[in-house]
């Protein structure tokens, strides 16, 4: 890689790697795995750097590699079968519902979701991507994103109860 390209690539890593690692962590639920995922994705981004040119395209490309690699890892390791018990984690005891406990409980419920549903929810509600951008990152159709998000939110409600305040988008009618 030419020196100028390497410099701009290093600047991109410095500016965006933390955000990419956080999103990867939310997808896979494991810090070490998220770091490996981003490291592997950045090697591919480095190879593609001369044709990516602008940082926005580079971030979208890296996110796409992270997403597709994460889903491939899930498939290989059958994570959903290993992790999903089909039952919600223990509900916090009454009187102990402080913010930290609530967050931890909700996080455990999120980890119960099938991988594709969790990835779609992370891209939509954490990364704030549009449905089209999410579909591009997941290499699937927009309809698939809608159905994955809808199914994920439905399952989440069944796990945590109706009192959870979900984003308003979650109430849209899903047609696909």
């Amino acid at each position: 890689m030419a020196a100028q390209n390497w410099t701009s690539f290093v600047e991109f890593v410095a500016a965006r790697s933390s955000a990419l690692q956080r999103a990867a962590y939310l997808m896979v639920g494991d810090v070490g795995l998220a770091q490996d995922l981003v490291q592997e994705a950045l090697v591919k981004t480095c190879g593609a750097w001369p044709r990516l040119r602008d940082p926005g395209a580079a971030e979208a490309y890296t996110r796409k590699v992270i997403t597709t690699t994460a889903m491939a890892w899930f498939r290989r390791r059958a994570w959903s079968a290993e992790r999903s018990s089909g039952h919600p984690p223990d509900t916090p005891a009454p009187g102990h519902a402080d913010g930290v406990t609530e967050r931890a409980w909700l996080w455990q419920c999120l980890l119960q979701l099938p991988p594709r549903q969790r990835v779609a929810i992370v891209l939509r509600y954490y990364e704030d991507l549009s449905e089209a951008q999410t579909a591009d990152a997941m290499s699937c159709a927009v309809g698939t994103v809608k159905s994955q998000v809808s199914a994920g939110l439905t399952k989440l409600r069944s796990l945590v109860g109706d009192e959870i305040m979900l984003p308003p988008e979650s109430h849209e009618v899903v047609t696909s």
Partner: protein
Amino acid sequence: MTETLKSVLAQQAASVAFKPPDLEAIARDHNRNIRRRRVTTVLATVAAVAVVAGTAGVLLGQPSRQADVAEPLSTGGVSWAVGSTIYHGSDTIDVGHKVKAMVRTSVGFVTVDDANNVYSVTGRGVTRIGQTPAVPADGTDYVRLVSDPQGTLAGWIGGDYSGAVLKVHDQATGQTRTFDTDGAKPPYGAVFFAIDDRTAYWRIATRGAVLAVDVDTGAERQLASSSEAHTVEIWSVENGVLAFSPNHRSNDNPVPLRVGRSIADGREITFGENAEPTGQVVLSPTGEWMSYLLVEFNGPPQQDDVRAFAAQVRDTRTDELVTLNLPQPSFAVPVVWLDGTTVQVLVIIGQDGNMYACAIPEGSCTAGRDIPRAQLEGNGLVLPNGRSVTD
């Protein structure tokens, strides 16, 4: 419960600390990838020739034989197998197992034996790389292996009939990747259609999908809607060009046959009245040409009313037919494209057979190597098209 989903995600993400990416390792891996690509290109060239000679290890260590490496193959690289022997150009390779199906890559061959083991045959030797389900009872012409003859990848269905996986082996690196099908069942629910460069094409019925998958990144592209996925049949893909049937009649010839860069924009190819191509439709490496075996019937197509067979090559852009100058009368089957303008054709005259290499668009054909009459008898001839043979 007052936490919103969005704030839970943000707080959870902010609650953990990450090590910064290892830039030194990224630079090292990036440089290694570049070197690997360069070495692979060189090795692929050397190994392809070395496989022909059957003495790759010796060749690589003998500078005095370098002239052989650079020498083009006079036979055009026609290949087939009988028993445990692969015939390639003027040389033979004994692979040590009975070959039941075979495909070519730019590096060597991938084979299936009679116990359904899958092997890689390269200049480095013969290595078992997997297992594939037995041929179904009605699958005498079942495609068991796919490859890109100009690339380094070959693929097959792994797992079993209760649930398949899709396997892709890279002969340049020796690595095999496995892709899940969510329990799709072969031979119709999980179908490995083709490999084009680094992209694999397959149907996974459990997901209602016909997909193009980047085997390096795992990125998927859906080619057909879920309602179309069960009837789309892809026969060949080269350089991004697909030869496919959008609404295929199961166990029938590829009719209608379309060619295009997507399922949506395919152009229908017509073959005249009372004639249909067989399923052995193969695109040239650039996608500009298409070879196939045409079956001509005495009347409306019926399996028991065949008048003649004809090996044909057609320009996919103009529909123009190329006349192949082959001995007549003969039975001829286009097999595989040796390069962008040369197609290997099996020609049988009476009880004798020969492999020809035909130049396109000229249509001139050169006899490669006679196939011993004994090899044509008993259905033991294996062509490098991935299809199985029966005893």
